[in-house]
């Protein structure tokens, strides 16, 4: 038998492991660093895979499938799990029928997120077991363990990863798929109908289940004890922190927690007694630390300054010595809207109109970065619409515009629009419809009319749903025509109406057409700098304030030419001249 080996990311590995474990139904909404889990699963024909409208929907569909009898999986990023918290909390009460695993990927260091929450807290809050692999190879192995635990204890299992596990690639020795028969579904109202009387009974069972899970945690192979050469230094750790420590302290003893909730108290206590000096090292919040403290054990841990941001290998000696974190300001080039990005047209118009822009989650959040600086709030998915309403209630005559993407609008903007119409608010919402979920790499969603496998399906009609939600005006416009967009925005802002403007132009990563770069005349340039305010990566500035155009980056969108007040930059296609 030949050994099958593949270079897999943590996301791909958990997907592969789940597929081999007989997974049938998988649901997610894209979110970095979890997106590749469903993308990988969609490649397996045995899996009924979907991009769901949002995480709450994804969780419910997958849980429903598990109760109906198929091994099922949900995946999202940490903030996505917040959206699914409602069904998650009560899924602890219903339990499952066939195995159900909820994968959540945290983003320590905020590579691409709006907060840095530690989703491990969800485990004690929901009273659900949680496991955490420390590498892609472990993610693969833990997938099967997760389904086994789920079915043995009649519980959803939380499967937590972080960016450095989800987006690390490693050799993984893979196997083949094992088909698991559907579990018959038997109606059981006491188990699946969470009315107060049933839920009360279930709560008692949950407390018993937690005790059983804690006993299981004591013997679980997911918690690994490694005796060091000396009994001096001992680490209790989990996730990627283990890898950093193991490399730098190969002789130390380790208790690496893979079954991270409920805790293996006896094992922890025995380990603490076996080492001279106990150090708890975990990324983000002090969760293991507080538990070790509650057991009355003597330990040291990282300085509280290390709770912020991701841990790095070079932090380990500082942490072990009890030092503080030295903040090193990032020198990385900031992410920026692509040259030719359709969002930039809209932001140029909003900037010109000095609008207060309530924003949302997507590429267009980059509209907040200077010098564009034209997006003024960003909290969570869908909040562009609801913040717009909140602002309007206080500043009814303000120039307030809510701005969000097509995928985000479908995810949770629709409810806000219905709310605005129902509660009689006026104003302007712009849907930046670039026909994809761009920031996570271009996934389909209901308004693209294509499934996760790019097959045609029913397309959500954005214009119709906006009108049905109660918008007084629904305009569709190509944002590249910024003069028309500017006139339309001014008109809608002046009217006592609730208006939606759908600015429709495909993402520049879909429509890769490039036109010749604009013409530039130094003689006409007054070095006013208005073009630099567009934050286009293709435009450079000389020491004297003149413009240089990077031909390899320029997409030929001519927004700079439209913006230039002195015609120093001109649309080469309009003038008809050549370079």
């Amino acid at each position, binding site marked *: 038998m030949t050994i099958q080996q593949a270079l897999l990311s943590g996301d791909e590995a958990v997907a592969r492991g789940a597929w081999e474990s007989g997974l049938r139904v998988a649901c997610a909404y894209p979110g*970095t660093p979890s997106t590749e889990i469903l993308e990988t699963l969609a490649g397996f024909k045995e899996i009924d895979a979907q991009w769901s409208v949002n995480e709450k929907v994804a969780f419910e569909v997958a849980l429903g499938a598990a109760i109906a009898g198929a091994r099922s999986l949900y995946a999202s990023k940490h903030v996505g799990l917040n959206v699914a918290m409602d069904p998650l909390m009560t899924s602890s009460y219903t339990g499952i029928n066939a195995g159900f695993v909820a994968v959540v990927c945290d983003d320590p260091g905020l*590579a*691409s997120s709006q907060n840095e929450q530690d989703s491990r807290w969800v485990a004690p809050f929901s009273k659900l077991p949680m496991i955490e692999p420390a590498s892609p190879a472990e993610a693969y192995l833990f997938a099967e363990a997760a389904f086994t635990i789920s079915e043995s204890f009649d519980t959803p299992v939380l499967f937590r990863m972080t960016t*450095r596990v989800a987006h690390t690639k*490693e050799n993984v020795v893979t196997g083949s798929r094992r088909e698991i028969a559907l579990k018959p579904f038997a109606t059981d109202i006491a188990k699946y109908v969470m009315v107060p009387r049933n839920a009360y009974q279930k709560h008692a069972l949950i407390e018993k289940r937690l005790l059983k899970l804690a006993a299981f945690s004591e013997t679980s192979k997911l918690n690994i004890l490694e005796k060091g050469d000396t009994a001096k230094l001992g680490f209790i750790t989990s996730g990627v922190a283990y890898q950093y420590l*193991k490399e730098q302290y190969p002789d130390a003893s380790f208790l690496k927690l893979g079954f991270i909730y409920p805790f293996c108290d006896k094992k922890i206590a025995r380990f603490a007694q076996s080492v001279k000096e106990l150090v708890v090292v975990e990324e983000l919040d002090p969760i293991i630390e507080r538990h070790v403290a509650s057991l009355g054990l003597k330990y040291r841990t990282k300085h509280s300054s290390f709770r912020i941001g991701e841990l790095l290998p070079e932090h380990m000696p500082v942490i072990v010595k009890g030092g503080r974190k030295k903040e090193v300001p990032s020198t990385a080039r900031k*992410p920026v809207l692509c040259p030719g990005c359709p969002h930039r047209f809209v932001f140029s118009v909003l900037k010109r109109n000095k609008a207060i822009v309530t924003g949302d989650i997507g590429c267009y959040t980059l509209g907040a970065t200077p010098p564009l600086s034209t997006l003024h709030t960003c909290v969570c998915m869908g909040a562009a619409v609801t913040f717009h309403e909140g602002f309007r209630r206080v500043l009814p005559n303000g120039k307030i515009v809510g701005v969000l993407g097509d995928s985000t609008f479908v995810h949770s903007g629709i409810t806000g629009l219905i709310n605005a119409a129902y509660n009689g608010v006026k104003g302007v919402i712009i849907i930046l419809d670039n026909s994809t979920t761009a920031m996570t790499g271009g996934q389909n969603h209901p308004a693209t009319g294509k499934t996760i496998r790019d097959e045609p399906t029913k397309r959500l009609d954005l214009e119709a749903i906006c009108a049905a939600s109660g918008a007084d005006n629904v305009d569709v416009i190509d944002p590249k025509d910024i003069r028309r967009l500017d006139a339309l925005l001014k008109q809608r802002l002046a009217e006592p109406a609730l208006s939606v403007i759908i600015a429709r132009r495909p993402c520049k990563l879909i429509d890769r057409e490039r036109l010749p770069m604009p013409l530039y005349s130094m003689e006409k340039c007054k070095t006013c700098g208005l073009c630099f305010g567009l934050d286009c990566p293709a435009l450079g500035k000389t020491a004297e304030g003149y413009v240089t155009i990077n031909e390899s980056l320029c997409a030929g969108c001519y927004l700079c030419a439209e913006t230039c007040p002195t015609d120093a930059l001109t649309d080469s296609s309009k003038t008809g001249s050549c370079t």
Partner: protein
Amino acid sequence: MTTKKKNKVTDRTWNIFFCGTGGQGVLTAAEICAIAAMNSGYHVKKSEVHGMAQRGGSVESHLRFGSRIYSPLIEPKTADFLVCFQDGEGKRLSHYLKKGGVDFLRFLSDPRYRPWDVRFSNTYFLGLLSAFLPLPLEAWEVALKSKIKRNLSDNDRAFTEGSFAGQKFVSPGKE
């Protein structure tokens, strides 16, 4: 040039830091090298951050291989190679390079180390890198084939040109 059929996995750990800007193919280059190392019998870890790296933003990939790798990240001052595709990023991240490590900035700024067509610079650089690494040619070929969907023959040519240039650099006396 001779290539050994069986490659002996050495005990040392190789740390290769790839960097550049979004759209340059940094991640693809790191991926090809990672697959070549895996196909040569090494334990590989490669780590990078996806997501907000739109065109023009910084892109880094940490690649480590050896008999057993724990940390997916390279520590500052420990990279054997800094493979940079953009000089600003190379300078910014030069603190990752160890003393005596190979800084690809020297190749980036030297017109002698350039393929006939700039579109194949990445594979040319991988060829250069291959001259320093204990990975057999077959492993590179399989890796290139698995990741390059367009212009495979041109990419193969760029890789070969790069590897010859690299070998001349490594042992100037030979060939």
